[in-house]
């Protein structure tokens, strides 16, 4: 319980410090809106050219886009410590400070940054989600609600896990290694569309290595009533657990890496 309280308090304080610079905050939030709005426009324009992509109608595609955006940007907003701030924390020696406090390192990393500008991206994603849901005429049930919540939660854990790979490298080399971005940002862009529109190698990548397909597409397809690969309904609830596994594995590696942390300067 103490951890959750600490996280909420930290978030409140970080929000306060961001609002110390209101003009910059507004400008950046606006920039994000334009960026993410543009991305959604691109999807709308592409979808406009076809009546459907495989078995997916435009409404379905908007829904996939919405699920992906909401998940990804919620993670970036609340997990900013892992998804963005960590490399500079290592370089500037802030990690030393965290190690000097009687709390878990990952907890403190998560407590040390928030990115409220993403709220606009989340809003665009939510709008796409609602729009897709209306256009495809989804009949919402309690189970479908659970599936969506699980997909967002565990998808978020998986994304955190992927970003943790970069953190692990960072602890060893004190440098930021951006190659993992291919999986994270690349994964987000690619997996805005359902996995079955892609050729086999990409499908493998986003099912086995960075299982966006399992955390996002399987549940979303279930909610749309067109199960992916005709898998049975229970898969929509079991597959997202892969996201939790990715997180657990990366968390173990992260803890190991800290034993080899070598700090910087004096």
């Amino acid at each position: 319980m103490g951890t959750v309280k600490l996280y909420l308090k930290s978030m409140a304080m970080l929000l306060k410090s961001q609002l110390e610079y209101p003009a910059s905050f507004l400008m950046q939030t606006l920039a994000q809106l334009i960026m993410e709005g543009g991305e959604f426009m691109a999807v709308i324009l592409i979808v406009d050219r076809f009546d459907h992509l495989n078995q997916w109608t435009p409404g379905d595609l908007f829904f996939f886009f919405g699920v992906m955006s909401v998940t990804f940007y919620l993670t970036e907003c609340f997990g900013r410590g892992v998804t963005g701030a960590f490399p500079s924390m290592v370089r500037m020696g802030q990690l030393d400070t965290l190690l000097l406090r009687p709390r878990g390192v990952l907890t403190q990393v998560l407590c040390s940054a928030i990115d409220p500008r993403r709220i606009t991206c989340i809003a665009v994603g939510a709008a796409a989600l609602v729009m897709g849901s209306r256009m495809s005429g989804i009949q919402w049930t309690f189970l479908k609600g659970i599936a969506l919540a699980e997909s967002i939660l565990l998808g978020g854990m998986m994304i955190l896990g992927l970003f943790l790979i970069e953190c692990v490298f960072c602890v060893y080399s004190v440098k930021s290694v951006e190659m993992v971005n291919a999986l994270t940002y690349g994964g987000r862009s690619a997996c805005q569309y359902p996995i079955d529109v892609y050729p086999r190698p990409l499908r493998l990548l986003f099912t086995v290595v960075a299982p966006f397909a399992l955390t996002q597409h399987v549940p979303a397809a279930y909610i749309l009533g067109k199960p992916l690969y005709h898998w049975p309904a229970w898969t929509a609830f079991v597959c997202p657990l892969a996201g939790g596994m990715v997180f657990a594995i990366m968390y173990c590696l992260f803890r190991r890496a800290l034993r080899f942390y070598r700090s910087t300067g004096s």
Partner: protein
Amino acid sequence: MSYITVTDLQKTFTVRKKREKGHLTREKTLVQALKGVSFSVERGELVGYIGPNGAGKSTTVKILSGILTPDGGQAEVGGRIPWQQRKEHVRHIGVVFGQRSQLWWDVPIADSYALLKDIYQVPPQQHQKRLNELTEALDLGSLLRTPLRLLSLGQRMRAELCGSLLHSPELLFLDEPTIGLDAVSKLALRDFLQFENRQHGTTILLTTHDMEDIAALCSRVMVLGHGSKLFDGSLADLLSRYDTQRIISLRYDGDCALPPLPAGCESIREGDGYRITYAPQTVPTAQMLSLLQSAGPIRELTAQPQNIDHLIADMYREMDL
């Protein structure tokens, strides 16, 4: 059993050089930051830890505070092994890095302190009592609502100290706490550290390059160089080994050439006077004075011991650091 026991502590870093042109692999060099350091510190001691840059001082502090894992040797602080029981250990220690802030940059320092209370899970009443005590001793009362970024360096150091002592640690590491401070802030800081040490029996380990800090605070000094401990004892003992020279500054009436001095003495022209360095053991002061008087009427003369920084520099030179 001592409070801190360190036995044969070793730490090696691998430093990769930048790849040279035409080479595929980068050259690796091993740097032994600590080559088997041993010492022990009793509860309530105030110990100075000195040595030139790169001697391994910070590495020692980082190992003892649980940030780094050593490659060999043992260390125990209050019965805990820092890097194995990190969370339990850091509950009982405070660390101040002179060049690194531990508080939040954009929020009033009072908010930082409130968050630290939650991080260390200090009961509210105890926290308030301690906060009152520290804000009074460090004269922070009027600054509590000011964001850290708006504080001057001296104010910031006081704020950092307060933050690192809020959870009433039994051990305090200070890494160059007076770096860049003005005279008034330095003196205030020293007074406060003495107060904290006496009032609460806090054990303090201080690394610094400022010998005045050591002279004012520490009854015991450890000298570290090239990863080994070179000296452990009182500052007076350390100085008496190297404090062998005296300095005479003098000015003659009118222009007067200096007489030839005995071997081992040095003279520098300073304005219209001279500055002479000699060792009283080889050339007694009386002999030196009569020699100087023989050259002409002396208008002004002062004799003084060598500056403490010079002594330390001599010492480092002699120890080949």
